[in-house]
């Protein structure tokens, strides 16, 4: 457990790598791409929604330690795109919020 003001630069790469092993780092970085490639659309209370409700902050934190804050922004953009498509297909254009 670290102090809340801990600077990323003050934490060694080795410490970060120990706590976020490659497979975790990989999952954090690429789950969105897999979600997008699966071709499924996001629904309220679906898996992605549930995951974000519980772990959004953890996910952001992990990517931030990895120095990939931008990746979160890109990923959220990708997810938004697959919500819109599903709404448009299911309800037709014009009903998308």
């Amino acid at each position, binding site marked *: 457990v*670290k*102090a*809340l*003001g*801990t*600077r*990323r*630069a003050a934490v060694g790469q080795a410490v970060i790598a120990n706590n976020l092993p490659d497979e975790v780092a990989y999952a954090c970085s690429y789950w969105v791409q897999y979600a997008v490639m699966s071709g499924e659309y996001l629904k309220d209370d679906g898996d992605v*929604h549930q995951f*974000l*409700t519980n772990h*959004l*902050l953890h996910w*952001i*934190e992990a990517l*931030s*330690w990895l*120095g990939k*804050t*931008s990746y*979160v*922004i*890109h990923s*959220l*953009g990708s*997810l*938004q795109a697959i*919500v819109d498509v599903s709404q448009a297909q299911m309800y037709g254009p014009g009903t998308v919020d």
Partner: protein
Amino acid sequence: MLDDASRFVIRNRYIINEAPLQIYMSALLFAPSRSIIRQTFVDVLRKYFDLMPKVPDFWGAEMFKLEGHKDGVESVAFWPDGQLVASASLDTTVRLWDAKTGKQVQKLEGHEGLVSFIAFPPDCQLVASISRDKIVMLWYTQTGELGISFPVDRSIEDLSFTQDGRFIVTNDEYLLSVSPPICSLVPRKGQSEPPAIALSGHWIRGHERDILWMPHGYRGSCSAFFGKNFIVGQVSGAMSSSSFRTKPTEKY
């Protein structure tokens, strides 16, 4: 929720990149009280705070802030394709930013004085800056390396490039030729067009009409426009960026 999360990360990207655990503190504490993210994770805050400061109910108008400069921002410019933003600051640095994510991509250090103006030439991977101590520097945007620097014998009050990228247009009757290694002053012909949209006092003006009044806290010392996007540099060292829904034209 996704839109909310984007705003949350974009608004706080500087601090969560610097000190990631501030996600659970500063980022959440100052998130709007009725944002989904604040409501979903409010229990985290309750672990640390009994009383929380009054914050707005909803996300503000500003989409994101570019933070990093240690002193006032004097000049901002968009790369000709709109993807990159450059800023010049009293902290003597020039910084380049990804216009989409707000990430700082280069910090250009070399000026000894306050950097007052900055501009991108069309169609080349350079950025030009000039400091109060009358040194012009040309930098490579890809690597952040200094290309050339040279002194000029007058203070320059403005900086932009001619369409062909060969000359720097300044405030006075001379153009600065920047075909390295020769940098010289040449007489200027004709007047350049004033920009269609610009920050003027507390207003964003377009086509000689006031379009948007900037409230306290959003006002800036300099601005840059690209299509419907604009960015305002502030004396605090922060810059805020927003987009009009459509490109501001005569109809505003």
